[in-house]
């Protein structure tokens, strides 16, 4: 029988969306197979922080103020001990910036098989199918160690797990894990602005070189806010300085998995498409009917983004009002 430990990432006292997703997905699989699930969260929590978590299990909460912004070294030390004490077989971590830093530390410390970016398969099978070489090759990886670590993004379908049960929360004493001379100190976190990371957005409107300039992204901001989504960019738009690198989607940027991806003035280089392999519906707006983006799109329109987008904004407004 498997025993899952879910790392519940906390930021500002709340559990991240990705972690809630991961928890519910693990609960769903575990309920079907009768497996055990526990969670771990570090740092002070707001009273309602665990409200979105359903199902049976124990959540270990290390509530120390010092863990509000934990270094991956401390987290790794705590989790290594917890996994050993509890004899967990599988650890599931959301593929956020923090999760991606933590997972390999933990894999090394526990000699565990790290499987990340898996696009299919269940946790039980352990087989991980993922894209490599810019999305041109689909590879199947198999864990070879006793303990497995899954780094899960939003590549997989979101779970609609509901249960009358609630996990119960117990205090975890993290004091023994602090080292007096920790040489990494996270001084501050400056949120670029209040926008959430595009890696978590369900709808993304992205612009490329075809946008023609920094100012034109206002159009995309408008369309995105209308749809409740985020704005992304291709590498050329980032290299032009029109958008920050944190908005870049593609091989040297982020991989995203939104329900809807609207590519505006993006030609569709293979490096950009590598970041979209998990997007569910792709819409392309481009003036070149032969642009490769149309081969990766479900819906397309040929035209100048500066004309198409304002018109599309009006049409979308109309559709949404009728609803």
């Amino acid at each position, binding site marked *: 029988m498997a025993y899952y430990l879910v790392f519940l990432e906390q930021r500002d006292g709340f559990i991240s969306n990705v972690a809630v997703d991961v928890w519910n997905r693990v609960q769903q699989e575990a309920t079907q197979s009768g497996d055990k699930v526990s969670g771990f969260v570090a740092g002070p929590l707001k009273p309602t922080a665990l409200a979105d978590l359903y199902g049976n299990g124990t959540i270990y909460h290390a509530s120390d103020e010092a863990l509000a912004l934990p270094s991956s070294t401390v987290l790794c030390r705590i989790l290594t001990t917890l996994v050993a004490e509890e004899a967990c077989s599988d650890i599931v971590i959301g593929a956020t910036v*923090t999760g991606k830093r933590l997972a390999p530390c933990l*894999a090394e410390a526990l000699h565990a098989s790290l499987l990340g970016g898996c696009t299919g398969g269940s946790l039980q099978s352990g087989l991980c199918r993922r894209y490599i070489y810019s999305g041109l090759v689909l590879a199947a990886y198999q864990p070879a160690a006793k303990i497995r670590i899954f780094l899960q993004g939003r590549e997989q379908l979101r779970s609609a797990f509901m249960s009358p049960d609630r996990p119960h929360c117990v205090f975890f004493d993290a004091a023994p894990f602090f080292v007096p001379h920790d*040489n990494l100190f996270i001084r501050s976190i400056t949120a670029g602005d209040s926008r959430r990371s595009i890696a978590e957005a369900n709808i993304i409107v992205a612009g490329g070189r075809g946008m023609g300039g920094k100012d034109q992204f206002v159009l995309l901001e408008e369309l995105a806010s209308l749809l409740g989504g985020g704005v992304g960019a291709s590498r050329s738009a980032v290299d032009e300085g029109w958008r920050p690198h944190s908005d870049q989607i593609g091989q040297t940027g982020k991989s995203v998995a939104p329900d809807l991806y609207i590519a505006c003035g993006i030609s569709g280089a293979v490096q950009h498409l590598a970041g979209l392999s998990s997007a569910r519906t792709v819409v392309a707006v481009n003036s070149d009917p032969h642009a490769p983006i149309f081969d990766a799109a479900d819906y397309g329109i040929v035209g100048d983004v500066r004309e198409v987008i304002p018109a599309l904004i009006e049409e979308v407004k109309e559709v949404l009002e009728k609803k």
Partner: protein
Amino acid sequence: MNIAVCICQVPDLPSSVAVVDGALDLSRVAWVMNPYDEYAVEEAVRLKEQFPGSVVIALAAAPEAGKELLQKALAMGADRAVEVRSLPLQDSFQAAWVLAEAIRNIYGKELPELVLCGRESLDLQNGSVPAMLAGMLGMPFTGPVTALRSDGERLELEREADGGMECIDACYPLVISTEKGLNIPRKTGIRQIMEARKKSLEIISASVPPDPLVRLRSAELVLSRKSCCFAATPAELAGLLHQAGLFKTVQE
């Protein structure tokens, strides 16, 4: 200051990767230095320029590691370039293991103050080696960093967080992975490349690493191509998206 930089190479064009009978065929691939590793080499050389007397050693652990990869690191300003020769490496754990062993062999008990690695290799994109290497060397790890300032004893680092930026105070020793935006790697001209060719490349042989933790079972080429449904007008497009239920979540 002693700085070690870990470098690897990736296919110049991913489309040159082939799959034969479920196994990867990389025989037609032309290799280049992994772009993230260029930021690592550049940052190491900049630190060396800031702190004269520093020594930068570039290490490449890849059975295919060509001369060109090591020579490029030398041309960019590394003092020494070492090829870590091993059996084919099957996963990030084995790669980190042979690098950790090589670093211990080269530096002995006095491990380098700084180990720099690219954030991930662009071919497989696991991004695991830097953190695993840090664990094996018993050094703290942070990354991927987009800014690095050092006064010789202390470091100020910036790294991307989800939806923001983190500022970090750190001191040596440290393993850091490098992200785009950290610097602009210098171009190497004919003169630098000719100079680099005069320097000797070192080879050290790795022991047989422990078993891999993850194995590649099979691979297939992805030939999926969606059939795009074209709309003639923005109104038609909005209608199609609405029909497909794509605006459903919007007002929830």
